[in-house]
Each structure stands twice: as C-alpha cells, then as structure tokens.
C-alpha cells in the first residue's frame, strides 16, 4: 500500500495544456500514473498527451466523464485558488497544488471551503507525492525512487529529492514521499500526513524533513510522541545557520519573534524520541540504526 497516490489513483491535471502542466503530465504518465483527464477552460474537446487524455472545460465535466478522484494543479498563481475551489466543488477529495507564489490571504479564504467539503489539499507550492512503483503526482523526479517501506514527508522540494536519492542509494525504499510545501499557509500539515502513514500498514519507518519558521515541526514531534510511539523516525531541519528575521527563500522559512529556530525544532524532535540528522546523507544510517533493513 501507500498513501495519497497509488495504482488506483484516477488523476485529473488542471492546467494540462500549459507549459508546466504539459511537461509534468507527460512525466507522470511515463512513470505509470493513471491520468484520466485534463482541464483547461476553453479547451474542452481537445486531447493531451498524444491523444491519450481528454481535455475538459471544467472539473465538473471531467469528473462526470472520467470519474477522476485526485487532482493536481499547474495553474498560474492568479488562477490557482479558483482551481482548488473548482476541484473541491466538483467533488475531488485529494488535491495537489504545485503552483507557487499564491498570496497567503487567498489561501486563508480557500481553506475553509476545502475543509468544509472534507477534502484534502496538499500544497500549494509543493512538489507533490510519489508512491514508488505505483504513481507519482507532482514534479518529484521519478528516477530517484525505490519501492519500500519508509514514508517521507517534507516542507521542501529539491531537499526532498536529495534525501530520497540518499535513501535509494543506500538501498532503502520508500512507501510514499510527500512534499507539503514551504508556504506559510498550506493545506496539509506534517501531522495530517503522519496520520495517513500511521494507517498505512506498509509504512514501517518515517523521515520528516523540516525547516526553520513556524512551529509545524514542534507540533509534529508532540503528535508523534503521542500517536506513533513505536515507529522509527528520523528528521532533518534545514536552516540551522540561517540568521533571524530574513526570509530564506520560502515565504514560510523565517525565524521571527524568537520562534521558528532550528534549535527549538531539533530540541522538540529529540525530546519526542526522534533522531535528528546533521546532514541528509546521515539519514540512511540513522534509519538503519533504528532497525530499517536495506534491500
């Protein structure tokens, strides 16, 4: 098994005819993801991916015709909040928003609608999720994965790839790798994803990739201590050397008002019995010390 995306996923790609959407749709399909529909308003009736995927004017029509159950959004920031609302309104319950630079107040308005519908949003400004050997949704390079039983959740993009590659090279496969995004306001938190991993029988160990800013890592540490006491878990926090008050790329990555520092996060994680790696390359070793067996 896996979480969020898998062999049963029927994927809808919003913005499939755009440059980003078209490129990644091709990559996802090549990986084996079952893309059943695309949506670009005004291009209904066309096809994408060499005629293999029908394009619709609206999510509503796309779902009526294809029973898509998961959506991924490559729509530019100005239209992305509406694209999320459209997916929710059409009945999609798992939505990945890859788009970056969505204003935070737009997300504040969108989230209550997502929640009221009982839908799950991952992102925005996230790399998506890959269940190796099953499906990938988003932009994580498919080639770096290996099938296995380690679940990974991360606030970063390329740093996630770095760790996935390190795991794969060490012979440690992954059940699902999830990037939740680096924005201040995101749809799914570490805890939301950890809950899914808890309920996945194939996930036997966890990796959490955090960074400075906010207190999501601290909350996740408390939750893990309470609900996942027996699952081995290793973490990494990026930004140990970041100066306070400066935004480190991600809008969410800023140490402000004496909170959000790497030191606080590491202390919270270690306090919850989670080993914190000094470098991404250390993570495989720490997992093995915690009992994970490479293939």
């Amino acid at each position, binding site marked *: 098994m896996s979480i969020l995306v898998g062999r049963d996923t029927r994927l809808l790609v919003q913005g499939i005819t755009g440059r980003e959407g078209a490129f990644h749709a091709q990559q996802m399909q090549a990986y084996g993801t079952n893309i059943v529909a695309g949506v670009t308003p005004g291009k209904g009736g066309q096809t994408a991916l060499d005629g293999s995927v029908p394009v619709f004017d609206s999510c509503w029509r796309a779902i009526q015709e294809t029973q898509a159950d998961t959506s991924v959004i490559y729509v530019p920031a100005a239209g992305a909040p509406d694209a999320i609302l459209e997916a929710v309104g059409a009945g999609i319950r798992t939505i990945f928003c890859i788009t970056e630079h969505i204003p935070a107040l737009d997300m504040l*308005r969108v989230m209550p609608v997502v929640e009221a519908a009982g839908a799950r949003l991952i992102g925005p400004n996230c790399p998506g999720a890959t269940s190796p050997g099953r499906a990938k949704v988003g932009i994580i390079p498919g080639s770096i994965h290996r099938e296995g039983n380690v679940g990974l959740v991360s606030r970063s993009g390329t740093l996630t790839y770095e760790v996935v590659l390190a795991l794969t090279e060490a012979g440690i496969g992954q059940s699902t790798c999830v990037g939740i995004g680096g924005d201040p*306001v995101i749809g799914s938190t570490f805890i939301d994803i950890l809950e899914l991993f808890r309920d996945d029988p194939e996930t036997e160990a966890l990796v959490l990739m955090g960074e400075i800013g906010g207190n999501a890592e601290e909350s996740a540490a408390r939750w893990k201590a309470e609900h996942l006491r027996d699952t081995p878990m290793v973490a990494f926090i990026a930004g140990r050397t970041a100066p306070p008050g400066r935004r480190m790329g991600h809008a969410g990555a800023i140490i402000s008002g004496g909170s959000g520092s790497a030191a606080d996060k590491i202390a919270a994680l270690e306090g919850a019995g989670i080993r914190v790696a000094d470098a991404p*390359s250390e993570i495989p070793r720490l997992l093995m010390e915690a009992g994970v067996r490479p293939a």
Partner: protein
Amino acid sequence: MKIQEADAKSLLAAQGLPVPPWAVARTASDARASAERFFASGADKVVIKAQVLVGGRGKAGGVKLASDAAEAEQVATAILGMDISGITVRKVLVAPAADIVREVYLACVLDRGARRVLFMGAAQGGVEIEALAAEDEEAITYIHAHPHLGLLDYQARLLSFELGLEAHLKEAVAIAKGLYATMIANDADLVEVNPLAIVRERGADGSSVELLQCLDAKVTLDDSALHRHPGLEELRDLDEEDPVDIEARQQGISFIRLEGDIGCMVNGAGLAMATMDLVKRAGGQPANFLDIGGGARADKVAAAMRLILADPSVRAILVNIFGGIARGDEVARGLVEARAQQSRSVPMVVRIVGTNAELAAEIMSASGGIELATSLDDAVERAVAASRREPAST
C-alpha cells in the same frame, strides 16, 4: 516586504484610520521646515523619528522630541546618518508630539498555524509585544478574525473592552476593523499600531477632548501579492537595499548576503539552507543564501554568479543543483558562460545531479576550471578546502 512607518501610516489613513499629520525629511533643514509648520499650527513639541526597517530605533537614540525649530534641526542632524543595527538612517519622520493619556497595543497578523488572521491587543502599549507576552501572557487578548467575514463587530467590541477603551467604543471598533481592512486592501502579513493612544487635544472652543490616534504603524506586505498592488511596489525602500538585492529580485533569485567566504548557488530554498548548514558543519563559512529557483536557465545562472562575485569576500563557489525541473546541461552551460566572463578567478566546485547530469558533467569537464563533485558532502568538503587555498594569481 517591509515598508517604512510613514508609508504604513499612509496605508492606515487610506482606510480612514485616525493618524495624526506627519512629514518625511531627508535633510535636517527639511526637518526644521516641517517642524516649523507643526509649531505654527499649534504643536507644543515635535517628535523626530529615524525611518529604518529594523527594530529598536528608540533604544538606539533614533526617536527624539524637540521644543522648537532650532532644536528640531539639531535633533534631525543627529539622527540622520546614524547607524541603527547596521542600517544608515537616511530619512526622518517629523510629527507633532501627542499629549498621550494612555497607550495600548493593537495588531493583526497572519497566523499560519490557525490559517486565520489573528488580532492581538494589550491594554499596555508602547512596548514590544514579544516582551509583553514573555512577561505576562494574560496581558494579551487574542482573537481570530473570521476567514471570510473578517473581524466581526462583536469581536471588535470585545477587543475594545479588553483594551479598556469602553469610553471610545465606536472609535476603537472602527480602528480594529480598519486594521483588518488595511490588511485585506494591501495583502499585508502584519498591521501593527503601537501605540494606539488616547490623546488629549484642544477642541475648537478651547476645551480639551480625548480621542484615539494611531501614533506609530508597522505594516509588512506579502511578496506573493505585490503584483496585484502596483502602487505598493513603489514603497520598497531602495535606500536600504543593497544593489545586489535589487538585481536578485529582478532575476527572481532569493539572495541573502551573509558574513562568510563561500558563495553558494543552489536550486530550492530547503536545499539552499541545508547546503549552508553543511558548509558551516564542515568548518566553512557561507557567504550567502542563494536559491536560484525552479527551471534554472543559463542567463539566471550567470546572474546568480554575478551576485555571488559582487561580494569581495568570496573565496570559493559551491554550486549544488538537483535537477528535477531544472535541466543539468542548461545549468552547466550557464556556469561555463559565467566562468568565461568572470572578472576574478575564484575556485568553483559543482555538483549537479538529476536530469541530464551526465551531459552537464561533460560540458563542464570540456570547459575546465570547474571542480566536479560526486555528492553533496563531497562538494561541501571540496568547497571548504578551496576557500582555504591561497588565491591563484590571475
């Protein structure tokens, strides 16, 4: 984006909030002229405040009163050019000094955990909210605005009562709602009025009246939303920005200059932070944070290189690119090109992995002058070593 107090006050005033008059002066004589106007229209004293985007200006001596125009000029002379937390003061704000009866604190801020706008109020104003929170958590009233309906009337009233403003209920409600309106109208992350003050003014008939006024204002804006507020981009204070910061922004590169000597060029914010951390762990000192962003094209790579080399302290460059969206060969070509245009010779260690990494390695080997690394750890070690070598003579 941070903006200056005077600009923040303009945004509040645009939403109809009561902000006493002010003027901005870049020279002491301008400050004197403004002070003269305020004295002429009845002010007893004026306050002169350094306009800088860093905190603690009061403690640093950047806020002073003056009782006449000559003193105003003298105070302005002292403040202008002053260094506050590394920033040179180039502007002062001049305003009539208020006759303050009482000061309170009121702000709204984006609460990322709750995904709501959070109002914070304290009956004690004029102090830093973090300090107050550390001292007495109970002293602060927290209220989340409704995500769609905003700060509701009853919430604004509740804040007003908790702040002890019952004698000014209508004004206080309007101000609290105005803070929210300011936030929404400008896509702000933070709108802070500290102090919000009950001030005593002379009425038309000479009697004294008490009213609420926003005596200071702090607003920070959401960079992701600036494009839809064309007027706000103009509030960016280029005086306080490094020319390299300006170039970085124009190129869509996240760049922060630090104290060290190893220039870093990385794609992705998390990986860029991790790379800095690894440099420090290996005994080196990163000269910067630099996230080149997604799909790093050759011209962007060249611009990133210019930004790094503009720092004379840089003694080695570490390039770490994990190709996903970014194609390794394009990055390599950009690096080779930039290397050719480079004015001074700085050792460069490159690690490219992912899409078209082999092609990238070929391109860089053919060009020469670039040290290729096999892993991130390897790249960091080599860069730290390179930063310690004596520079080759050009």
